[in-house]
């Protein structure tokens, strides 16, 4: 399906975006990404393991020429930390994009929206293409766009929870409130969750745990690829309105009397 998503001049062929965390091996990561059909993957910035030098590098398995690399600031709890990670990520030289996370609570990993707004503003001014991971709050989404966000990434549910799209109505309001792409990030548990997000009209969905921690990650990656395409097509096709009563599909005319 040729239906690219274009953000700040960057063309994303796939609307299913995939994280690279929690896989059993780099080899499995590479296979799952391939099966998902995605062309954009998220990565984290961490210290090189200087004790065990035999460790391979993720980018040996994920070719930055083939996949767009979207680094994150996962694990950052303050604006300063998030800025530091974002700047380090950009210095790697593969992307000006940053999936900005400023986390406010350890248990829920919900974003600290005050910090997120501040960091978005600073990084956007520094020329970053900022994708803030945010709550499913339409007002915050609008503020993030005002601060320079290239897109907004509201959560469907807490990261890694698999609870799905808990508040589709808020996601719908966000879609109507902002003039940038809306990418659901976090909460997807299975294929139908991806379809629901896409049927709502979201521009893309980012998934990590649902694939990486499935019994068969490769098969789940393929399932989500189809779910994403199905949801997108259904959205574009335009669903029928919901009604309380039946309307017959077969004609009344021609019935035997």
């Amino acid at each position, binding site marked *: 399906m040729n239906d690219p998503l274009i953000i700040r001049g960057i063309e994303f062929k796939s609307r299913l975006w995939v994280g690279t965390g929690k896989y059993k091996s780099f080899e499995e990561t590479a296979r799952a990404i391939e099966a998902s059909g995605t062309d954009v993957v998220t990565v984290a*910035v961490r210290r090189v393991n200087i004790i065990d030098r035999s460790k391979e*590098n993720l980018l040996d398995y994920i070719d930055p020429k083939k996949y767009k690399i979207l680094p994150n600031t996962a694990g950052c709890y303050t604006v300063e930390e998030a800025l530091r990670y974002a700047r380090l990520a950009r210095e790697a030289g593969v992307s000006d994009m940053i999936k900005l996370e400023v986390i406010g609570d350890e248990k829920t990993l919900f974003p600290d929206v005050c910090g997120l707004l501040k960091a978005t503003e600073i990084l956007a001014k520094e020329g970053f293409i900022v994708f803030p991971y945010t709550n499913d709050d339409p007002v915050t989404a609008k503020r993030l766009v005002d601060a320079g966000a290239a897109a907004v990434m509201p959560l469907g549910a807490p990261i890694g929870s698999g609870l799905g799209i808990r508040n589709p109505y808020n996601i719908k309001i966000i879609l109507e409130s902002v003039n940038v792409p809306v990418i659901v990030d976090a909460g997807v548990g299975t294929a139908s969750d991806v379809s629901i997000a896409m049927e709502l009209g979201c521009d893309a969905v980012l998934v990590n745990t649902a694939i990486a921690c499935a019994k068969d990650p490769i098969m789940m990656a393929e399932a989500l690829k189809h779910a994403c395409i199905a949801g997108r097509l259904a959205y574009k096709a335009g669903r029928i309105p919901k009604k309380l009563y039946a309307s017959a599909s077969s004609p009344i005319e021609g019935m035997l009397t």
Partner: protein
Amino acid sequence: MKVRVNGNYMDVKAKTIAELLRELDINPNRVVVEVNLEIIKRDRFNDYEIKEGDSIEIVNFVGGG
């Protein structure tokens, strides 16, 4: 010379970042280096001299969501 690398106190022979990466057997093209919170661009690795007591961070991309 005693420096702190990724949180570990180490005694290193290296005088520059390029030498330090070689000493630690790290591919310079895959990492970003920060010395005392300042990012050092890759084209400065050969010239940038490290000093006793420097706090050096060597980071790369890992799997993440």
